[in-house]
C-alpha cells in the first residue's frame, strides 16, 4: 500500500527522501543542498498533511545519497527532518537528522562586526539551544538564532 503523500509526490527508484521538513523551509533545503544545480530528478511538495506536525514539506532526490556534512546543513533549517534512503523502491535506512553540537563553516555569523565577516575565517559555532536552534559564535560570542540565520 502506498500512502497518500506518495501519490502526491511520486515514488523514486533509488535516492533519498527528506521528510518532515517545515513547509516554509522546503525551498531553503533545496538551496542548501544545491539541488537547483542538480541534473537528477528532484521532486518536492509543501503543505502536505502530516500526522505528527500538521503540515510538512518533503523533498525527493533521485540517485543522490548525502554525506554527513550535508545532513548537518539540513538539520539547521529542518531539525526534525527524516532522511530515508531508497534502493529499488525499498527503504534501506531511515534516520532522524540531528543538530551537531559544533557547527563549522555552514552558517554565517549574524554580527556584522564579527571578525569572521571581515577575514577569511571559517565560522564556528556551539549549539547552545537545541530546541530554538541558537548558535553561539566561537569568535565574537554573539548568538545567531533561527530568525537571523543565513546558511552559506
Amino acid at each position, binding site marked *: 500500500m502506498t500512502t497518500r503523500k506518495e501519490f502526491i509526490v511520486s515514488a523514486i527508484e533509488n535516492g533519498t527522501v527528506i521528510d518532515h521538513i517545515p513547509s516554509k523551509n522546503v525551498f531553503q533545503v533545496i538551496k542548501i543542498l544545491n539541488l537547483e544545480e542538480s541534473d537528477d530528478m528532484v521532486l518536492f511538495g509543501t503543505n502536505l498533511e502530516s500526522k505528527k506536525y500538521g503540515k510538512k514539506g518533503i523533498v525527493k532526490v533521485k540517485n543522490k545519497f548525502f554525506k554527513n556534512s550535508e545532513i548537518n546543513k539540513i538539520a539547521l533549517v529542518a531539525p526534525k527532518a527524516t532522511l530515508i534512503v531508497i534502493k529499488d523502491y525499498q527503504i534501506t535506512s531511515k534516520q532522524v537528522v540531528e543538530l551537531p553540537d559544533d557547527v563549522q563553516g555552514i552558517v554565517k555569523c549574524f554580527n556584522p562586526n*564579527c*571578525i569572521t565577516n571581515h*577575514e577569511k575565517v571559517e565560522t564556528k559555532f556551539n549549539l547552545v539551544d537545541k530546541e530554538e536552534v541558537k548558535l553561539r559564535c566561537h*569568535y*565574537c560570542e554573539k548568538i545567531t538564532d533561527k530568525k537571523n540565520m543565513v546558511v552559506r
Partner: protein
Amino acid sequence: MKNRSLISINDYTKEQQLRILDIAEDFEKNPRQRLLENYVVATLFFEPSTRTRLSFESAASYLGGKIIGFSDTSNTSVQKGESLRDTIKTVANYSDVIVMRHPKEGSARFASEVSHVPVINAGDGANQHPTQCLLDLYSIRKTQGKLDGLNIAFVGDLKYGRTVHSLVQALSQFNCKFSLVSPLELKLPSSVKIHIKENNLEYFQTTNIEEVIPNVDILYMTRIQKERFSDPMDYEKIKNSYILKNDMLQNTKSNLRIMHPLPRVNEINEDVDDNKSAYYFQQALNGVYVRQALLTSILGLK
C-alpha cells in the same frame, strides 16, 4: 598558565583568576623587578586606547621588558590591506607575547589561533576585555578584603558595556548581591543575567541610583552614550539622573568604594574625586600590577 592566551574572562577558572590577583599583590609591593629583561612584548593597538596600552607598556617596562608595536594602524601594513592573520603571524615571530586591541569582535580569539605565542586580549570590539575585569576584581578584593558576600551596584549603561558584562559574570562565581541601576532602555541583557540566576544569587533592578547608594559596598559607574538612544528626547530625560554628585554620598556605608572603568565624561562629578570613597584612579593604577601578574604568569615566570 604558561603559554595560555587570555581572550575571555572564562578562559581562566576561578582559581586561576584568584592566582593572578595573588601574584598582582606581590607586584604591588614591589613593581620594579627585572623579570622580563630578555623578553619582547608586542602591543598591537588597531584602535586607539590610552589607559590600557600605557598600562600594559608601563607594566612591562617596570619589569625590564622591551616593547614593540603600534598604537594606531596608520603607518603599518594594515593600511596596505594586510590581513590580521598575516600581521599576527609576523609579529609572533618577533615577540614572546602579543597584547592586542582590535575593533572587530572575535579578532583576539582568531589571533590566538594563528599565533604561536600567547595572546592577551586588550579589548575586541564590544565583546571582551578580560584584563579590565581582573583589575576590577583586584580592586574590589583589595578595598573590601574579600570577594564573597558583597553588595555591588552597577550604574548606567548595563546593556552595551563590555566591562559590566565580564565583571557580572566573574562576580557570579562569588556570593555577591547585585543592584542593577539603569534606564529601561539599557538594562542588563538576559544573556548576562543568566549567570546571576544560574548561581541563585540575589539581584535587584531599579532606575533610581539614590535608592541603592546607602546599602552597597561597591558603586560601579559607567558612561551612558547618547548614541545608544533611538529617541534623543529619551536621552535628555534621563541623562542627569545618572550623574553622581558628592552631596548624594552623605549616607553611605563606610567601606563604600566608587569605581569606574574610565574614561568618564560627566557621570561622576569632579567634586566626588576628593571623597574618601572615590577609587577610580587607584583602580586604574591597579591595572599595572594585574597586567604584570598576567604577563609573568603567561610567560611561565611566576
